[in-house]
């Protein structure tokens, strides 16, 4: 794509982001508390999907442990409220980012040296360690009973009830989502973004143009981990009560699922996947307790028939439409 074409595309993307923010804001009152919650959940999962796909779609690394990073964000918020009585949302999220950064910077040192199945298994093991810790350290985390989350302040504005908090929290989640999406779009289209894509295609060639592969993988891992941590930190006040369920490998699998569903070769794939996944989950879980079976079956269909996911199909349809 040449520079003028790309510039036009960039403006379109920025306008789309702005439009999404406006539409989500305008429809808020029509949605009601239930659907507002669904939208917030979709946006939260979209954030983790974006971060996850930085590794899978752009760097070729499949992580089965992003739930562990999500859990770090979630439990940093939960434990900070429980043990330090912090009630400021922005401070809680900042703490989660710091803790996430510290853990990811150590984890990334090893992870960035691994590829293929070794990376996937390493991340699976990490996720399970975090799960076991939050599940078994009952005296600290309350294990499977979970932790209550009572955030009452956003930018020092207090709220009298959870309903009121969630009403305004909706806007907060939109802002974080748009910022995360904007940053990620710029990142994947930056010099750095192009370099990590090149690493996916041929890391030996990358070495022979003078680039330190591990360093780039490390930074990509760090950013991806921070997205998962931020998503976890945002999810905790939304859920109001956190349990180890969202730290288990099942949730890691769901992150893989939504990314493949939306399409890992497209920037918007994980976001679209996050919303479709949320709707499938909400809808199916009301009609059958075997909803995970249906999700598994759809995953097989996607992998076999539509390897580029929903956005791949959309791209195919639009190119056929243009040819007409």
């Amino acid at each position, binding site marked *: 794509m040449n*520079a003028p074409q790309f510039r036009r595309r960039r403006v379109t993307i920025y306008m789309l982001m702005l439009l999404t923010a406006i539409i989500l804001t305008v429809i808020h009152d029509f949605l009601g508390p239930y659907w507002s919650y669904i939208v917030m959940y979709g946006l939260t999962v979209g954030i983790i999907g974006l971060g996850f796909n930085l590794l899978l779609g752009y760097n070729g690394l499949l992580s089965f442990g992003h739930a562990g990073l999500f859990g770090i964000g979630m439990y940093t918020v939960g434990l900070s409220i429980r043990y330090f009585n912090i009630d400021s949302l922005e401070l809680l999220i900042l703490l989660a980012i710091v803790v996430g950064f510290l853990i990811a910077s150590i984890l990334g040192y090893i992870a960035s040296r691994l590829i293929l199945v070794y990376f996937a298994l390493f991340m699976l093991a990490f996720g399970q360690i975090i799960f076991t810790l939050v599940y078994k350290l009952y005296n600290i985390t309350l294990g499977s009973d979970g932790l209550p989350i009572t955030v009452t302040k956003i930018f020092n504005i207090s709220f009298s009830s959870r309903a009121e908090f969630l009403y305004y929290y909706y806007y907060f989640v939109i802002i974080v989502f748009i910022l995360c999406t904007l940053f990620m779009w710029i*990142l994947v*289209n930056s010099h*750095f973004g192009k370099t990590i894509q090149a690493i996916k*295609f041929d890391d030996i060639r990358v070495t022979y*143009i003078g*680039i330190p592969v591990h360093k780039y993988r490390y930074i990509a891992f760090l950013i991806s981990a921070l997205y998962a941590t931020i998503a976890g930190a945002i999810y905790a006040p939304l859920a109001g009560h956190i349990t180890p369920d969202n730290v288990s490998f099942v949730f890691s699998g769901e992150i893989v699922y939504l990314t493949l569903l939306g399409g890992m070769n497209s920037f918007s794939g994980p976001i679209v996947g996050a919303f479709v996944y949320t709707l499938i989950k909400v809808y199916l879980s009301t009609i059958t307790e075997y909803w995970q079976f249906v999700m598994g079956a759809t995953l097989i269909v996607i992998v076999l028939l539509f390897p580029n996911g929903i956005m791949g199909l959309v791209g195919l349809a639009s190119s056929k439409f243009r040819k007409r």
Partner: protein
Amino acid sequence: MAILEIRNLKKSFGKLVAVNDVSFSMNKEEIISIIGPNGAGKTTLINLISRWIKEDEGVIKFMDKDMKSIGPREAVKMGIARSFQIARMFSGLTVLDNVKLAIASRKGKCMKFLSLFDEDKDITDEAYTILENFNLSKKANFFANELSQGDRKLLDVSIAFSLKPKLLLLDEPTSGVSAAEKTNVMNYIVNMINKNKIGAILIEHDMDVVFNYSSRIIVMNEGRIVADGSPEEIVANVSVKQIMGGK
């Protein structure tokens, strides 16, 4: 002035001695072809010079600097670039992006997080100039995996050239290329080598290519150098004829 100096180089893989007591030096702007039967140690030698592997014994000096502690990435920064027997490129990126990325690396731009790659006019213009020299500019927006074998080889070399090397290592630049494309591929490469006044070491099996484009030929067999001289001297060497099976 010698840009590359190799003294008593030795490399073994288990009991197999792949490179055995190899010594030669190379002047700036020389094009040296290394020939020899399969298993002679040619690719191992290239891998040693490009620092993919480390020597067991001996010394490699590039621009008077001992390369002992130098890795492949540092070698690139010092001015050694290479192409590969099976062309290595970023198959899912466009031809233009392949070259742009190498230029961005040379200019230390790859760590930029917030500047957009596609809007970097500076590296785009330079990439088009390089692609023009290799007759690839019309295919700039093709994905690398859509190219013919000959064009892949040219792209591989274009990437190496984008690094502005002082020494270019070419591992079989015409392998897998059709006979019709071979001359074109070599003409573009050698023109660029001459234009940029750099040195090149070429591994090649095609003797027409070797004798038409080299200023000097080194013959290897079983890890050792058995002959070193001008194309005319090598043609006249009887033992070379025996080793190369009359090629």
